[in-house]
């Protein structure tokens, strides 16, 4: 029960956090409510996708299908990291326009594509981690311990929802400039963590050379094999023993993001 709570909480936290941050941002910037509708549609689609992906992972028997699913999951990591980054940059532009009371300048098409981005990001966030939750819950259901399953799972979902709600509420308290900045930073850090996870998968599958592995070992300071360390690793991309390839990808990511951020600030 305690374990079910922790696993479900951790697996759903990322999706809830992304949803919470987007919600806080949309609420402050979009009066029509159509952005928030897009967000909820995306979340619902993600739940459906999670079940589909979970089912696919469960029924996989042969190696080839397993590899195809691995590739698919790796691809979703890259797509999610890319989309979140693009969305943050879009939000920055959009937010500036709103602040300058240039709402009319924002064409309907730009708004639509932005909302589509929000929906897709939300759907991917739910689908990715949700698939693992589906398998975890399926395993528990097979144990036959349905009471513990329901209690643990519901408490985990509620806990993750409450954590995200708290984050969204505290973000909403901030003034609009700070809200935009902080939510952007949180989302970008999450995106970089997804990128590192994707690179890890490519390294693990032997599709990318690690170059130098590990570059250092900081497990004495913060061990990513512990419960808390793993949580930090999942959300920030931290690795106690990073490969050079991962470090290069990380540095390139932040280099490109900071460059684009500065440029969009000038425009």
């Amino acid at each position, binding site marked *: 029960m305690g*374990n079910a709570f922790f696993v479900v909480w951790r697996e759903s936290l990322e999706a809830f956090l992304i949803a919470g941050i987007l919600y806080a941002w949309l609420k402050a910037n979009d009066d029509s409510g159509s952005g928030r509708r897009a967000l909820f549609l995306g979340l619902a689609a993600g739940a459906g996708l999670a079940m589909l992906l979970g089912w696919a992972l469960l029924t996989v028997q042969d190696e080839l299908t397993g590899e195809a699913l691995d590739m698919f999951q790796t691809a979703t990591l890259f797509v999610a990291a890319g989309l979140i980054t693009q969305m943050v940059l879009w939000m920055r532009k959009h937010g500036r326009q709103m602040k300058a009371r240039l709402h009319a300048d924002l064409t309907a098409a730009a708004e639509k594509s932005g909302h589509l981005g929000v929906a897709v990001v939300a759907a991917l966030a739910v689908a990715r981690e949700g698939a693992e939750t589906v398998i975890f819950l399926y395993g528990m259901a097979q144990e036959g311990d349905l009471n513990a399953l329901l209690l643990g799972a519901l408490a985990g979902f509620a806990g993750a929802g409450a954590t995200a709600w708290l984050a969204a509420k505290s973000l909403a308290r901030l003034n609009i400039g700070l809200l935009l900045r902080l939510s952007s930073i949180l989302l970008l850090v999450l995106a970089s963590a997804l990128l590192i996870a994707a690179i890890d998968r490519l390294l693990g599958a032997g599709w990318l050379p690690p170059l130098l592995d590990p570059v250092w070992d900081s497990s004495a300071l913060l061990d990513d094999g512990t419960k808390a360390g*793993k949580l930090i690793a999942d959300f920030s991309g931290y690795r106690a*023993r990073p490969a050079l390839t991962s470090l290069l990808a990380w540095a390139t990511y932040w280099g490109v993001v900071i460059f684009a951020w500065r440029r969009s600030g000038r425009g």
Partner: protein
Amino acid sequence: MKHALNSVVFALFLASTAALADDMPTYKLLMKDGRFYPETLEVPALTRFRLEVKNEGPGATEFESLELKKELVLAPGVTRSLVFYPMKPGTYKFFDDFHPETGQGRIVAK
């Protein structure tokens, strides 16, 4: 034409994975009751090998190692294989992400 090319590529891919599978030592790891059996796996250093992970349940498990960059979700009763690339001598930790309290193990490459 494109279709034929795809088939050839696919056949080559199959052949290469089959060839790889042949000359690799295989080790077995059992996941049961939230624990690993054995908890310490000894493997030769600088050698590619295959690890056959079986989850006997109860419940789903997730074999994971950030050091070794592996992540594999297993429903109860499922067996899957992981290929590990040559590793330097040393100790590498892995854990069961669905049972982090009890599911801890390590690979010792010698």
